[in-house]
């Protein structure tokens, strides 16, 4: 794909919208990142308290998950999509609809945040029933998700119009990537919208008495795993369409990118039960099927690993590298005016480890060793807090710089990803080793397991939680630097033209799209596979459920309202 012009004049409305969508979540992210630091200190027993800075541990953990993993990521994906689709298709976006989407998401965010701050939503970002949050919390989540749908629907007419006006041309890879991201999101959020609107909201309002817990969890994980690809795919878009250019080369193969994206459409969703390997109510054979499909979804990442290495090698050779591995030393690792390369490259390095640990988790019975231990956050911080987070914060800075015409000053911006990498290496090693020793995740261990005064003291975990705290502190410091740079740039002085510009790469092998020209066959294949993999799971869940459950306040070990077991359930009271 080649552009006659690489810089587009910027619509002022799009600029204002984008700055809000990047700036507001970035402001919230300060709370989310601060919460993360506090959790590592509380887990390690450095702070021995049920709460810190006025937030209970589990309340802070809820904020950390919701802000960092849902609010920040989704706002970024929408802002990035608005700008990139406009840029790649050379079309202006319908701003009225884009603002409607933005307001739905903002109002939803405020509703959720207020409830969590008020202590009415300490249910973590997975909001597993029968722990119950305030109805406003669930309503906020629903608004937020619907807002992101509206943002996506806004791009569909643009895409269709472009296809009509450019018959026979292949859709820009960047647009295919953004659409893949939101097709996955659109399919996977329908069941969670059902969970929130049909099961949780009426139940929390008291309109329905009880709900089926395992069914709700299954609906959540139908959404919960594709969610991680929703995070990852915008980063993949940057890897394929921007990293080669930032490195000074070309994308090795355009077709490989399209193949990887289409496999994500097919295999992102019918794999969710691998989060439920340890749960009852789902037949082991269906868990094995989901395990098989999960191993399949690693293939697009293998493709990406090869294509990125090949693209970087091409760039290194263009920069004059000779020999077999010389190109590795020729890349622009520490170039202050090309900081985006460092954010993406470091993300890829971290993702190598995130991917490998993911394969371990996907491996069915191997999951027995690591399920719900500290290993899990160790793993997913190397995915969502590795390539995803670094790509998102790097690109946020890049978009702000281009759209406001305010240059990022100094050399620190390029140092942030490297400091982060050092931090996360220590942090995740600590969590994963601790997890292999049985350390549970999502637990305020400073009060018990890491408290020498507690009867539950577990000194053998000390080293690993200390590593986690040290790594977490380094990550926090990297983010302090980043926030200073981001807000300094945002509120700084304009020196350049305001433009809409992305560093889009050309392809080295630029083949015809062939079977990857249309989404339709891939979406149909995805739906067929979802039906095959989820029908038996849902049947099992339904037939194994003996009774449904009333709500519980996380602070109180008795039901939040009167609850009588249905008469057909025989409870064995012989004792």
């Amino acid at each position, binding site marked *: 794909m080649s552009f006659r012009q690489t810089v587009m004049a910027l619509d002022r409305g799009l600029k204002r919208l984008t700055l809000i969508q990047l700036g507001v979540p970035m402001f919230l992210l300060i709370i989310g990142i601060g919460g993360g630091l506090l959790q590592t200190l509380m887990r390690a027993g450095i702070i021995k308290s049920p709460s810190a800075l006025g937030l209970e541990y589990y309340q802070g953990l809820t904020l950390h998950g919701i802000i960092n993993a849902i609010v920040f990521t989704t706002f970024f994906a929408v802002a990035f999509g608005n700008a990139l689709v406009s840029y790649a298709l050379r079309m202006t976006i319908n701003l009225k609809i884009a603002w409607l989407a933005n307001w739905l998401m903002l109002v939803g965010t405020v509703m959720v945040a207020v409830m969590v701050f008020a202590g009415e939503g300490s249910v973590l970002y997975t909001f597993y029933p029968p722990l119950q949050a305030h109805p406003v919390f669930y309503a906020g989540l629903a608004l937020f998700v619907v807002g992101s749908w509206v943002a996506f629907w806004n791009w569909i007419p643009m895409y269709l119009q472009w296809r009509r006006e450019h018959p026979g041309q292949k859709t820009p890879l960047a647009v295919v990537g953004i659409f893949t991201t939101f097709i996955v999101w659109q399919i996977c959020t329908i069941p969670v919208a059902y969970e929130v609107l049909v099961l949780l909201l009426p139940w929390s309002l008291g309109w329905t008495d009880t709900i089926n817990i395992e069914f709700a969890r299954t609906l959540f994980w139908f959404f919960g795993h594709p969610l991680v690809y929703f995070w990852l795919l915008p980063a993949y878009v940057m890897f394929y369409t921007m990293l080669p250019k930032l490195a000074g080369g070309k994308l090795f193969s355009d077709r490989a990118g399209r193949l990887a994206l289409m496999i994500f459409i097919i295999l992102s969703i019918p794999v969710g039960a691998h989060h439920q390997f340890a749960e009852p109510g*789902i037949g082991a054979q269906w868990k094995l099927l989901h395990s098989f499909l999960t191993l399949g979804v690693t293939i697009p990442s293998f493709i990406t690993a090869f294509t990125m290495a090949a693209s970087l090698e091409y760039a290194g050779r263009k920069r004059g590298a000779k020999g077999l591995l010389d190109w590795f030393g020729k890349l622009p690792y520490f170039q202050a005016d090309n900081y985006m390369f460092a954010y993406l490259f470091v993300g890829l390095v971290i993702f190598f480890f995130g991917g490998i640990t993911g394969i371990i988790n996907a491996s069915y019975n191997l999951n027995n060793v690591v399920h719900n231990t500290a290993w899990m956050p160790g793993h997913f911080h190397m995915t969502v807090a590795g390539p995803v987070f670094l790509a998102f914060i790097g690109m946020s800075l890049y978009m702000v710089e281009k759209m406001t015409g305010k240059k990022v000053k100094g050399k620190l911006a390029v140092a942030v990803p490297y400091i982060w990498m050092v931090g996360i290496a220590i942090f995740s090693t600590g969590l994963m080793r601790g997890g292999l020793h049985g350390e549970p995740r999502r637990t305020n261990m400073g009060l018990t397991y890491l408290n020498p005064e507690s009867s539950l003291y577990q000194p053998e975990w000390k080293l690993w939680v200390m590593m986690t705290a040290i790594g977490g502190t380094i990550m926090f410091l990297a983010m302090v630097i980043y926030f200073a740079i981001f807000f300094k740039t945002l509120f700084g002085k304009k020196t350049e033209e305001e433009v809409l510009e992305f560093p889009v790469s050309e392809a080295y092998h630029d*083949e015809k799209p062939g079977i990857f020209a249309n989404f339709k066959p891939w979406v149909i294949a995805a739906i067929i596979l979802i039906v095959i993999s989820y029908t038996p799971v849902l049947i099992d869940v339904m037939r194994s459920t003996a009774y449904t459950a009333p709500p519980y306040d996380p602070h109180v070990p008795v039901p939040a309202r009167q609850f009588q077991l249905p008469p057909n359930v025989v409870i064995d009271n012989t004792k």
Partner: protein
Amino acid sequence: MDKYEQRAVLGGSFLMLIFFVAVVIATTGFGVTVPTCIVDVQPFKHGQLIKLADKHYELHAVAKMWSFDPPEITIPPGSRLDIFLTSPDVAHGFNIEKTNINLMAIPGQVTYASLTFDQNEWGNFRLFCHEYCGMNHHAMQGWIKVWPAAALGATNQPVQQPAPAARPAEKPTDTTTQQSNGGAKQ
């Protein structure tokens, strides 16, 4: 696509296939399984340990806010332990350290797993709740104690703690788990 690229895709796929075959062998050959769907066991409210035969026990475990019932059990080394697990309130975790037992307790459901201790394997195994279950989640811990029959007196508590030099010294039983141990009585 480039021929090396095609090889990378095929190679990656082949590697994953090998991993999957290894998983299947571990399941069928070594019997390392994950919980399956159970429809014929009704949820129960109280925990208990039932002796089915010599060195064969059945544990009815109830994970609840914020303790395990029974909070501890004592069985002889070499025992087979069949675990049935449920929850009367919210979702909980059930992870016995140093074993492959890692389960979820879900209200309305019963889960099953089986564990056989090695003849030479004994000591105190901690049992952790690893699913967030409310504000006291971090205090939800139990014990599986594996001690020789000679050490089993009238109570569940081992009379003495013979610690061979090869084993790290185990922590003495703490007060929280001593409060109630009726569930583990035969």
